[in-house]
């Protein structure tokens, strides 16, 4: 758009900034939000634009020329009923032997560190030995933390498994999750450590949109 100012015989060209020059996301991606849901009664989950699912959807729409969402569906996850059934089973999931426990914790530490510092390495192993020596297996905060570590250790040490088999470590994970349902009014570091140890296997192996992310 040109604006000509009179007087002096000189025309001043001033271009108005256009949306093409300063596009925002709505201009680059004019389609609406993407939601993922197969079953109507269940609230659909919004797929953020940074997600690979959204990128795949846009590609599919461009190739198919279709407006319907055609992104790959990801419904392979551990359901809440499975986790609940594990917790309700008798007898409950026992602590492993001390040797196995140390191996699982060391495996978990080896994979988490150094990018994610979630626990103090030496103190955690020392406390584990103390738990077995003094038979303090029923303190909820301690059991939650170590069961979360056992779950991580099992998952990281497992061989490839068929998709119709439970994810390794699910039992320990279910118990760890059940032990931290009610958050303490006066939290301590062990509660935060436990929550983060629970998040790791949940996000990587058990669900595409885990409630533990929220």
């Amino acid at each position, binding site marked *: 758009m040109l604006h000509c100012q009179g007087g002096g015989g000189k025309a001043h060209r001033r271009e108005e900034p256009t949306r093409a020059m300063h596009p925002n996301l709505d201009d680059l991606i004019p389609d609406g939000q993407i939601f993922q849901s197969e079953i109507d009664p269940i609230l659909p989950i919004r797929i953020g634009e*940074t997600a690979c699912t959204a990128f795949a959807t846009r590609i599919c729409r461009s190739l198919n020329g279709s407006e319907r969402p055609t992104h790959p569906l990801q419904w392979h996850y551990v359901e809440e009923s499975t986790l609940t059934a594990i917790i309700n089973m008798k007898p409950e999931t026992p602590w492993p032997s001390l040797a196995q426990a140390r191996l699982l914790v060391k495996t978990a530490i080896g994979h988490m560190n*150094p990018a994610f510092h979630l626990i103090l390495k030496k103190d955690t192993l020392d406390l584990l030995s103390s738990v077995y020596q003094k038979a303090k297996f029923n303190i909820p905060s301690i059991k939650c933390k170590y069961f979360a570590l056992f779950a991580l250790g099992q998952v990281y040490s497992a061989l490839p498994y068929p998709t119709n088999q439970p994810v390794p470590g699910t039992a320990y994970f279910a118990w760890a999750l059940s032990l931290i349902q009610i958050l303490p009014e006066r939290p301590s570091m062990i509660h935060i450590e436990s929550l983060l140890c629970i998040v790791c296997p949940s996000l990587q192996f058990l669900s595409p949109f885990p409630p533990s992310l929220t």
Partner: protein
Amino acid sequence: MGNALRLGLSLGLNHSSVGNESSDVAAREHRVRLWWSIYIMDRFWGLKSGFPAQVSDEDIHVGFPNALVSESHREQFSDHAIQIASIEIARLAGNTTRELYGRKKAGGSFLQREQKLLIRQRNWMESLPDHLKLSSDKPNSRHTVILHLQFNYVSHAVFKL
């Protein structure tokens, strides 16, 4: 993870220890590194899922992890340089989510914002310590490879739009 972040905020992990701070160096360093682990998870999973970050960079007032040299500290902590590099990648991830994928109208053109992010990525690569750079002459450690894979994932998010 949201619960972990909220508990961390209630304990003031996003602030440097002041007042009744513990004289225990390891305890203080544990608080710092735990907070930054929360930050890294928040930013990475925000980029993966498209959810906004749960805590702003402006609300973080704690320094980076320190290099602790005593033997007892080495038994408790891992190499601080890797976590610092991960923190910087997480920051890039957060900036990418906000500046390129955010619906809020940002200053500057899209290409300018993208260019700034690419410059920051190049700076990250150049500022890496030597032991964290990928080597073609000798085997790379698993953690170094994972670090660079994370970086490539964030780079991909910049380019795919």
